[in-house]
């Protein structure tokens, strides 16, 4: 079922996400150009850091939030096969988020919010930047509630039956996102916004960094989960097979919910305000968060093997060649796994207690998250959009070849951009700098590698524009789309008739998250309320000189 509301909601949300994405891509290429030895136009400190703020805000907050909301509405109707509850609330959330995104954008481009997407206090921007972000997050909270309500209504109507995996995973992400945003919301509401309004002249920076770290890791899994939903529920079907194990899918999403939260201190390994004991505890938990990804690689590999063998593939690896690589969803999955392989290795270095000192705040980190987030995650966003667009627009895809070309370009561009960027990080290139002094003998040698990265960026921009074009092509397509939207989802080899309550809801897991968060973050936050924790003076960036 895909009635008008979800169809239009998905259409509107995904277009907003991809427009923000396209604008941010252009800024990204210009930033890389500014950092290269080639002379770039318009570069001043103010334009560069405003651009990075806009690029980071669009890519980290606006694009994923709207993508995830839009995809969630689609899943809620098609996987549950019932109309979305309270579509009016969904549209209000859309309007709220859109208004917030516009407000933040205008504030950034007026030069009053050059604080980057992490806005570390006591640097303080115009309050309209923060309010814009709050509105985007508030919109996503409405979405979270709608997803939970949709699942609850379905369970009431289907007592004892297992919630379809795609919806179970979507609600897992909604629940996780509510937990995730507590940290940044507390930081914004109690520290940053009062400072921006002039109500507070000083604030506790140790506390604000700790609260932000609460959000900073789990947000990565928020971005990632739609890709995993596609891996588990859409890819086996697109490949012509079955999902190897539905239970493993449920466990994976539950593990993400549990382990992506109590690990944020690993972003503060080089910070002086947290002790080794808690850093160490959270690094240990961080290692565990790789378990659900390893489980996924196995389950999806096995599901694809089933598909390959059904299509006549033989031998140990023959099934790989027999897969329908001409289908965008299958191709994107292969490319995403390759990028995950490269990126997983890099992640190991970041996580390592010792090696982190070598790469912290160098280009290694920026390159790493471009590869995993911009690469693995975003290529699946493309594939999801291609897969659901026929149902959303009611028209068949005009050209799968153009879609495949776009995906290959993204993969190639990502490698060309990020591999030298990683290398620059190892050489010691630090991040968040507008221009480098290439006259310095140490820095001079970096130049050629930055230029290669820039070429990768241009390829990515080309791919991104082709993606937008490919979506627009649906509008001129004459061929109506026939298949029912629900046919997108794979069934399991052994579809479960019943699952234990623990695997069909989140009550138990929420209790566990609460306990873990108290253990992992209780003292690290409480310490700022003991004795007199030092306060730093607010430094505004939005005053005209």
């Amino acid at each position, binding site marked *: 079922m895909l009635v008008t509301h979800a169809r239009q909601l998905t259409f509107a949300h995904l277009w907003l996400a991809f427009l923000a994405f396209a604008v941010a891509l252009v800024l990204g290429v210009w930033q890389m150009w500014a950092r290269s030895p080639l002379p770039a136009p318009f570069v001043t400190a103010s334009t560069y850091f405003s651009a990075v703020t806009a690029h980071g805000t669009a890519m980290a907050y606006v694009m994923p939030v709207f993508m995830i909301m839009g995809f969630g509405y689609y899943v809620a109707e098609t996987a549950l096969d019932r109309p979305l509850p309270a579509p009016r609330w969904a549209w209000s959330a859309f309007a709220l988020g859109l208004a917030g995104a516009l407000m933040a954008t205008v504030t950034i481009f007026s030069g009053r919010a050059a604080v980057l997407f992490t806005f*570390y206090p006591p640097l303080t921007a115009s309050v309209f930047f923060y309010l814009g972000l709050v509105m985007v997050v508030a919109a996503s909270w409405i979405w979270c509630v709608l997803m939970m309500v949709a699942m609850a209504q379905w369970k009431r109507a289907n007592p004892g039956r297992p919630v379809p995996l795609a919806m179970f995973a979507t609600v897992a992400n909604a629940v996780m996102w509510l937990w995730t945003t507590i940290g940044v919301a507390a930081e914004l509401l109690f520290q940053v916004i009062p400072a921006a309004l002039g109500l507070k002249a000083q604030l506790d920076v140790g506390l604000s960094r700790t609260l932000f770290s609460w959000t900073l890791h789990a947000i990565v899994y928020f971005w990632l989960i739609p890709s995993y939903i596609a891996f588990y529920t859409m890819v086996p079907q697109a490949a012509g097979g079955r999902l190897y194990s539905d239970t493993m899918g449920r466990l994976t999403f539950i593990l993400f919910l549990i382990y992506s939260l109590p690990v944020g201190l690993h972003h503060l390994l*080089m910070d002086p305000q947290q002790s080794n004991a808690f850093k160490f505890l959270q690094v*240990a938990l961080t290692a565990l968060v790789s378990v659900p990804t390893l489980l996924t690689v196995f389950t999806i590999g096995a599901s694809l093997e089933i598909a390959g063998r059904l299509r006549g593939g033989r031998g140990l690896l023959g099934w790989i060649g027999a897969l329908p690589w001409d289908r965008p969803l299958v191709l994107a999955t292969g490319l995403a796994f390759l990028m995950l392989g490269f990126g997983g290795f890099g992640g190991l270095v970041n996580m390592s207690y010792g090696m982190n000192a070598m790469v912290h705040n160098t280009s290694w980190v920026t390159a790493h998250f471009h590869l995993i987030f911009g690469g693995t995650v975003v290529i699946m966003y493309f594939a999801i959009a291609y897969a659901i667009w026929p149902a959303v627009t009611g028209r068949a895809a005009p050209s799968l070849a153009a879609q495949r070309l776009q995906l290959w370009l993204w993969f190639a561009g990502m490698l060309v951009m990020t591999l030298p960027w990683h290398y620059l990080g190892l050489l010691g290139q630090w991040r968040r700098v507008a221009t480098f002094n290439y006259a310095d003998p140490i820095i001079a040698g970096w130049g050629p590698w930055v230029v290669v990265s820039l070429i990768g960026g241009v390829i990515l921009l080309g791919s991104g524009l082709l993606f937008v074009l490919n979506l627009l092509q649906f509008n001129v397509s004459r061929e109506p789309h026939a298949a029912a939207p629900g046919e997108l989802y794979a069934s399991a080899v052994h579809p479960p008739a019943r699952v234990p309550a623990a695997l069909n809801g989140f009550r138990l897991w929420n209790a566990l998250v609460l306990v873990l968060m108290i253990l992992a973050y209780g003292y690290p936050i409480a310490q700022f309320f003991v004795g007199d924790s030092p306060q*730093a003076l607010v430094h505004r960036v939005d005053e005209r000189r």
Partner: protein
Amino acid sequence: MPISEEIIVRSELRWAAISVGVVSVIMIALIYAGLVHHINPPSNIERIDPKTLHLGGEFTEANLGTRVSGDGQVTSRIVATQFTFQPRCVVLPANRRVTLRFATPDVIHGILVSGTNVNTMIVPGYVSQVHTVFTRTGDLLMPCHEYCGLGHSEMSATVRVVPPDEFKPDAEGRVACDAR
């Protein structure tokens, strides 16, 4: 479907056990590396009031730069401020354990020293302390690596690592770049 449910469950469990095993081995390797190489992030939790940093105590102007104490310990004290370091150049001896101590009166900064493992955030309210041994001599870059405002890109200092026999403290135990 030819595969029985039992086989699927068994293979998944086996793989889960392998995953947990691999992750545990990696964890142990990380712990071992951390302990053996004494790699410890700056986690000393020493509070200092950023507003009165320059008025008294360790980080007043007269105390900044490299100093050798009576018992032979080498310590460099550096203030990071929008958008410069005080001092902008410090001298340190090669092949000897040295301590770097940083503080800031204004916003968040951070440093790395190019080609070494020296890396820390500098957070207003705290002293960041790093111990290291420099093995290569020469002028190393020490840029600010956390965005601290519009002048951030230009914020950089020099760490001058000299051979031990060229490292000559004056009567008060001080060594400065321009004095050499």
